[in-house]
């Protein structure tokens, strides 16, 4: 059974432009073209991450106040 998102189609250049704009980035056209060229490789990496991982594997949601108090 598939547990990642690699079955999804790659984002189109227009979708990449939209996502970038929504992230608050206003890139010059030359830099945007470069980003559109490299993003699919990074998108593929992110989509290969397994999605059925136990939340206890890494308690990223945890906050340990003693660490802050102890400096």
């Amino acid at each position, binding site marked *: 059974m598939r547990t990642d998102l690699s079955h999804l189609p790659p984002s189109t250049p227009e979708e990449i432009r939209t996502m970038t704009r929504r992230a*608050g*980035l206003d890139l010059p056209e030359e830099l945007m073209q470069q980003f559109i060229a490299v993003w699919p*490789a*990074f998108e593929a990496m*992110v989509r290969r*991450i397994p999605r059925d*991982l136990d939340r206890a594997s890494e308690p990223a949601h945890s906050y340990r106040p003693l660490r802050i108090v102890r400096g």
Partner: protein
Amino acid sequence: MDHCGPLTRSAEDIALFLQVIAGFDAEDAGSEDVPVPDYRAALTGRIEGLRLGLVEHWYAHGAHPDLPPAMAAAVEALRGLGAVIEPVQLSSLRDYTDCKTTISIAELYSIHEKDLKTRPQDFGRILRNRVLPGALIRAEDYVQALRWRAILAREQAQTLKRFDALLTAGALNVADRADPDQPDRLVSSPSITMPFSVGGLPALAIPCGFSRAEGLPLSLQIAAAPMAEPTVLRIAHAYQLVTDWHRRHPDLH
């Protein structure tokens, strides 16, 4: 999440350098408050009986053609010193690269966000195009990658219960030209230096040969359990006592 450390001619120089810079830093959340060992004292030149796991499948395919034979020669040199070397299987290089890249680009973007929004043209092309993707990483991607990191790190920790250190290549290819217009290799192939960043293990890369076509160094990577820098240095130093790759220079003319 990246590894930082000294860059020197020899393992002995690293031991001396590390002795000066190692120690607890209360301002650094990633710093461990543990005693600093005598790194120089670890350089005994003797590694007989050490158990070393060889992660060959990370560089067996898709690497520079001169790398596997150079690694095989390095393994034989270490065996000649009395190390006991066995092949070991870990998750794929692709898995480690996917996990590490997702985490690091999200964290890098959070560091550079202001500058990327106000003066993106001031970044070098390769760095900019490695950091900008962090803007599109979703919270769930980041958290899942952190969970995956813990699983991959445990895999390494379990393996290091059977071995004193792990061996693999230090790079899959020779160095690129210092040309900012070169394509970024991370986009096209996984990175063999990322797995031990995922595990947070001390790792050291040392020259183990030169490529025939380019005349550039090939390298061997040694990693061990957290805080086992003395073991890593001991192995590298012993290897450098019986080889001279670290003293040779590439002919760049």
